[in-house]
């Protein structure tokens, strides 16, 4: 909370720091730029093409081309048996998706936002996550639940919650949160190929951002491992963990800290469950300080889990208490200034502490 109060003192300088557009894309003029939206679309397209058991269902995924245009062109290419527009009945269609997965198909169930997944959460947890265990492996559930998670811009309290910690606490689920286009492609392909239920948390504000992608990423067999984090930027003074949109913010923060001579190591978690504890621990053992960043509510959040994990495994290496930067402990307000206050904008202070 101190971080936010001190924020006010910085005033206008905050505006410059908040990243709006794209383009990390400065390093190589020959590498291709790809928007996250395109990355997701191409991943869906390639996996549907490779395996006839893969199908997509959700609200507006077909004729509307996707509420956020992620599934653009898929209906034309694969037909209405494989790209299914559902009525606005999350509990019903999620249950149907899970049942289809029981039988052996590989459905991808899209939630228009994860806020609506709460209507179907019984099927995600009780029908999907727990079934392999309860049936002693007889029935597997190769399903992917995907959609935008967390805050967008000005959509209010009921449309802005981050569900990473809710789903990540449940054994039997895998929870992924991509940041860049490379992450989006690699992790979505991995999720679709994975024989277990995967919750794939995208971010609406990242859909329009472009990132450079190498030829390897563009290859149709490209896949990222689930459960492995990525060190986005190496450093030696403080470790900052983040996922999804916050990775972008963390990278900007690292730039600013560098000017003050603080070298921050930024870890893009990529996988919330399973969490890449070895990578986080190794980093903290190197830097001796940790700041966790997330958009979601603070209590029982992802940062809380990382903090506990580090204390259990690397207590002796910490030179200072772990700091958490999270969304504010309030439902998301609408007014732009309040919304800004409710989300992490600046966390250099925490790093400096």
């Amino acid at each position, binding site marked *: 909370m101190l971080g936010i109060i001190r924020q006010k003192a910085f005033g206008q300088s905050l505006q410059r720091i908040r990243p709006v557009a794209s383009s990390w894309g400065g390093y190589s003029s020959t590498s291709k730029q790809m928007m996250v939206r395109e990355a997701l679309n191409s991943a869906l397209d390639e996996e549907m093409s490779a395996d006839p058991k893969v*199908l997509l269902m959700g609200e507006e995924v077909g004729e509307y081309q996707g509420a956020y245009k992620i599934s653009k062109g898929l209906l034309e290419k694969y037909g209405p*048996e494989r790209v*299914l527009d*559902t*009525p606005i*009945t999350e*509990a*019903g*269609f*999620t*249950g*149907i*998706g*899970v*049942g*289809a*997965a*029981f*039988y*052996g*198909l590989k459905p991808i169930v899209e939630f228009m936002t994860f806020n609506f997944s709460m209507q179907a959460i*019984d*099927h995600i947890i*009780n*029908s999907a996550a727990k*079934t*392999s*265990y*309860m*049936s*002693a*492996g*007889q*029935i*597997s559930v*190769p399903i992917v639940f995907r959609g935008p998670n967390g805050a967008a811009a000005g959509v209010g309290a009921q449309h802005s919650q981050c569900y990473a910690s809710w789903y990540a606490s449940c*054994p*039997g689920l*895998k929870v992924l949160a991509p940041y860049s286009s490379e992450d989006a492609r690699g992790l979505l392909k991995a999720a679709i190929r*994975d*024989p*277990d239920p995967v919750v794939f948390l995208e971010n609406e504000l990242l859909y329009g951002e472009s990132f450079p992608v190498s030829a390897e990423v563009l290859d149709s067999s490209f896949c990222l*491992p*689930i*459960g492995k984090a990525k060190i986005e930027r190496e450093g030696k003074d403080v470790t900052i963990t983040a996922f999804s949109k916050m990775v972008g913010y963390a990278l900007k923060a690292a730039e600013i800290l560098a000017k003050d001579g603080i070298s921050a190591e930024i870890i893009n978690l990529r996988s919330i469950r*399973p969490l890449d*504890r070895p990578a986080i621990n190794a980093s903290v053992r190197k830097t001796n300080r940790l700041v966790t960043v997330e958009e979601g509510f603070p209590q029982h959040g992802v940062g809380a889990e990382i903090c506990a994990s580090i204390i*259990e495994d690397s207590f002796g290496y910490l030179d200072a208490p772990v700091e958490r930067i999270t969304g504010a402990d309030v439902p998301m307000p609408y007014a732009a200034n309040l919304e800004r206050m409710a989300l992490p904008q600046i966390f250099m202070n925490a790093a400096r502490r």
Partner: protein
Amino acid sequence: MALANFSSSSRSNLLKPLAPVLSFAETLRRPISTSTDPLIIETSVPFTFHNCEPPSRSVETNPQELISFFRGMATMRRMEIAADSLYKAKLIRGFCHLYDGQEAVAVGMEAAITKKDCIITAYRDHCTFLGRGGTLLEVFAELMGRQAGCSRGKGGSMHFYKKEAGFYGGHGIVGAQVPLGCGLAFAQKYSKDETVTFALYGDGAANQGQLFEALNISALWDLPVILVCENNHYGMGTAEWRAAKNPAYYKRGDYVPGLKVDGMDALAVKQACKFAKEHVLRKGPIILEMDTYRYHGHSMSDPGSTYRTRDEISGVRQERDPVERIRKVILAHDLATEKELKDFEKEIRKEVDQAIAQAKESPMPEPYELFTNVHVKGLGTEAFGADRKEVRAVLP
């Protein structure tokens, strides 16, 4: 009960004088018990229908099938009663929802379908599992939480599965199995398997919103799913008229056709399921309401007599018991003698006792099983026990 005999009558007259002379061993070899000559029997009550043409009341069956109905239901009955004793002896823990009284639904349905068709039900699943080909040992061992159980002891009473026989569980959340069943049907249609799914639920679950959501989608997409309401008239302790504004569950599909069936008559159940299977393969979903009854309470912690009278329970047992009904049909058609049927029951009792003894021998799961099957592909990640520093495992 109106009966119509055809080819069997002349043969039975021939054998009748011989029967008392044959020894017990020879009576077991009597050919008539395995005859597959068709027999037409009328259902006890006509079907009530909604938005469809009902099937005929005349059910085609044969002696072999009727004997197998008797054996099947008697086994289920004996199994559930034995489970009651095991629960009271504290060998079964947690929840135990017994199906005795409702056996005709499980047995009649099996007679109309194949193992490629799918069945999914709620937590009152022991007999449905048995009908799908599960063994008594698998049932008792699972109830007692042993390795020989169908879910290796990790599921319990409410989570029996047999995927290779098309049985998808075994679900504890009321109503959740209905959308899952519609999903199975979706996958069957997608795979062009020409098979169907029966999604069973109770009168208590019939008011669930997700049921109507799944029904809407099934009707829109023409899924080959049959929603079967096993109406035993009480959702736990709440009578149907206290829970549903309209307890005519077969009509609640509105635009979806429905059929109300005497669920205590295995032949009526068979006829309805056969009709339903043909219907959904061509015309999309249908609802079957099975008018049935459970003798036990909702579960073992419910005496079952606080919300209904003992007279009602014994009345149903007298008038409509499914096992007795088939016994009467068999005896009336002279397909077996009363002694032979009693001998079957004795045999079944022994089978059940043997299975229980075997199940008691089966060990409890090994400690490492705590961490198996969390995922299909564990990716080598760590999982923790209650004391994280003491109990850790790597998921394969």
